[in-house]
């Protein structure tokens, strides 16, 4: 890989925009196509491109495989936590109307948070699966 200058430089140029685009898809999912799932996959794809071009060791230095399962669990927990909070506020599980004074604002907060949970879980699980294959191949 050391001599593939074109590949390395193009990837280096692209990766920041891929990650930025993932964040755009994540937080713009209410207004345009996309959402947590797509954003998580695109974010993971950016890191995977980095790993494919720069090698497994470099990628592990960027994102350690050890921190990924707890992050994935945090995503599911964030999603479920939104449901529990709406229960504590006297509503049904995942009833976002009660998250704010105005029901529509509550819906916005709820959707933003659960999409974030989905995105975090999907991105870290995609990377976990990728790392599992890469580790086997070494």
């Amino acid at each position, binding site marked *: 890989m050391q001599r593939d200058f074109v590949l390395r430089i193009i990837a280096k140029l692209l990766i920041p925009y891929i990650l930025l685009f993932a964040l755009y*898809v994540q937080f713009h*999912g*209410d*207004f*345009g*196509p*996309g*959402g947590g*799932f*797509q954003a998580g*996959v*695109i974010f*993971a*794809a950016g890191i*995977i491109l980095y790993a*494919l071009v720069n090698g497994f060791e470099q990628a592990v230095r960027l994102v350690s*495989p050890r921190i990924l*399962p707890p992050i*994935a*669990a945090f*995503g*599911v927990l964030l*999603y*479920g936590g939104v*449901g529990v909070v709406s229960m504590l506020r006297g509503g049904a*599980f*995942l009833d*976002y109307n009660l998250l704010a004074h105005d*029901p*529509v604002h509550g*819906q*916005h907060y*709820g*959707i933003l948070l*659960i*999409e974030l*949970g*989905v995105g975090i*879980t*999907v991105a*870290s*699980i*995609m990377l*976990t*699966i*990728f*790392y*599992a*294959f*890469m*580790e*086997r*191949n070494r």
Partner: protein
Amino acid sequence: MTHLIDIVLLTFLVATAIAIVRLNSLFAVVMLFGIYSLITAGVFIALDAVDVAFTEAAVGAGISTVLMLGTLALVGHRQAPQQHSRALPLTVVVITGVVLLWGTADMPRFGDPEAPVHQHVAPRYIQDSPAEVGVPNMVTSVLASYRGFDTLGETAVVFTAGVAVLVLLGRRRRQHRDPGSSGD
């Protein structure tokens, strides 16, 4: 014009599928699977399902291709020569295809507004979601709010899939130290 785009996309889809069946090099098959997903994403865009197209392009053409290449690196990229006869699989495929075609004859016409799927909960979502949820992308308001339970289940499924892959493939070094394990 739309029909022309549909015909071109579907022709490419069939050509890719036939190439996948006929090729023996698994590396080429994996790359063609990626192309197949990309064409499918194009079909979804032609159907105005941009969210699905987005997912298909990112997951089908992107991540799956990389993961299948990772699998090929583990199992080798030549297909084992076939020993059994091809008559039985061909019969099964033909019968399944005929049954599927026969089944679609009973389905409502494509885009029919009177179809049951458009009469059930969809009108309520379309009429009430701008006031109830207030999110411009109705797909997001259905997925994240009306169907919040389903999406929580999907997220749990993704999490479970990751844990399963970790159990099967990861943590190899720890397994070697364990004397009770027969290894991989």
